[in-house]
């Protein structure tokens, strides 16, 4: 009784906070503040995962989203700085059209939700060990396992490393390969020429 009342309060409180922070994240002009709102929204989503008894995903959410993705977003904001670019001034027409379109989407999805009956039940009984289940599913080679998608994820991450590196890396100015190489070679050439010159008089002397 008490626990389901707490569940209700937590759900509605976290939902309200998450929605408020998401609205802030898409509306704040200052992008650093928007990134901060996004971070708060993602960490409260981790709270929602805990509420759904998906503790492992909550941990992954904090580790990957907040520890990695938001940090990258902040780095990108810092890299593309200059105060007038940091402010985002949406056009009023785009704002109205975007609001209308997203409200339309929300309306259609709400209608679909109202008219659909999902064959669901709340899981009862002893809680399953989620991390164990996830690990078994990820490494399962059978028809219901996710081994191939799991191995493909490593390929996706490899592509992300290479792509991100190639695109973001500053193209280094050429290290003047011709002058240094040419100098060195020229020196050896003059050296040999001098020796030749030394030799030639030596040979011409007798």
């Amino acid at each position, binding site marked *: 009784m008490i626990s389901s009342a707490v569940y209700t309060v937590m759900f509605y409180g976290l939902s309200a906070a998450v929605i408020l922070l998401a609205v802030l994240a898409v509306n704040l002009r200052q992008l650093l503040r928007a990134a901060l709102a996004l971070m708060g929204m993602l960490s409260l989503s981790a709270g929602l995962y805990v509420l759904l008894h998906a503790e492992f995903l909550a941990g992954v959410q904090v580790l990957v989203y907040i520890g*990695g993705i938001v940090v990258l977003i902040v780095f990108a904001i810092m890299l593309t700085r200059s105060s007038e670019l940091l402010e985002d001034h949406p056009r009023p027409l785009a704002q109205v059209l975007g609001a209308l379109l997203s409200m339309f989407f929300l309306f259609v999805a709400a209608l679909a939700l109202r008219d659909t009956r999902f064959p669901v039940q709340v899981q009862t009984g002893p809680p399953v060990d989620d991390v164990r289940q996830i690990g078994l599913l990820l490494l399962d080679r059978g028809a219901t396992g996710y081994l191939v998608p799991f191995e493909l994820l490593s390929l996706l991450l490899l592509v992300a490393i290479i792509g991100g590196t190639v695109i*973001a890396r500053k193209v280094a100015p050429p290290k003047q390969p011709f002058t240094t190489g040419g100098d060195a070679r020229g020196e050896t050439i003059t050296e040999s020429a001098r020796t030749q010159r030394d030799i030639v008089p030596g040979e011409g002397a007798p």
Partner: protein
Amino acid sequence: MEYIFVLAMVGLAAAMVGGGLFFSRLVAPHNPGGNKSVPYECGEQPIGQAWIQFNVGYYLFGLLFLVFDVEAALMYPWAVVFRSTGLPGLIEMLIFVLVLVIGLIYAWRKGVLEWV
């Protein structure tokens, strides 16, 4: 509700931080201006603006960190079931790690790991 203590801890922490801020605003003298509004840089005089252009090396290191962060998060469920999957699971995870090591070697050869 095994998280009731976590909840209590969150409430307590928020109350301590918020209460501290509230009482300091209530009690402390409020007299802004002058050198007080200068950013604190360990006693140094701040030079230039805060909005300097950051080095792209930060981004490249963050990129590599994020990818291997994800890898560590994916290794955790494997470590939990390591005893029951045994050698096949180890081989599968080794393939996964080796593919990412290729990316690390690529970044290394391209000089991403050197700070310029």
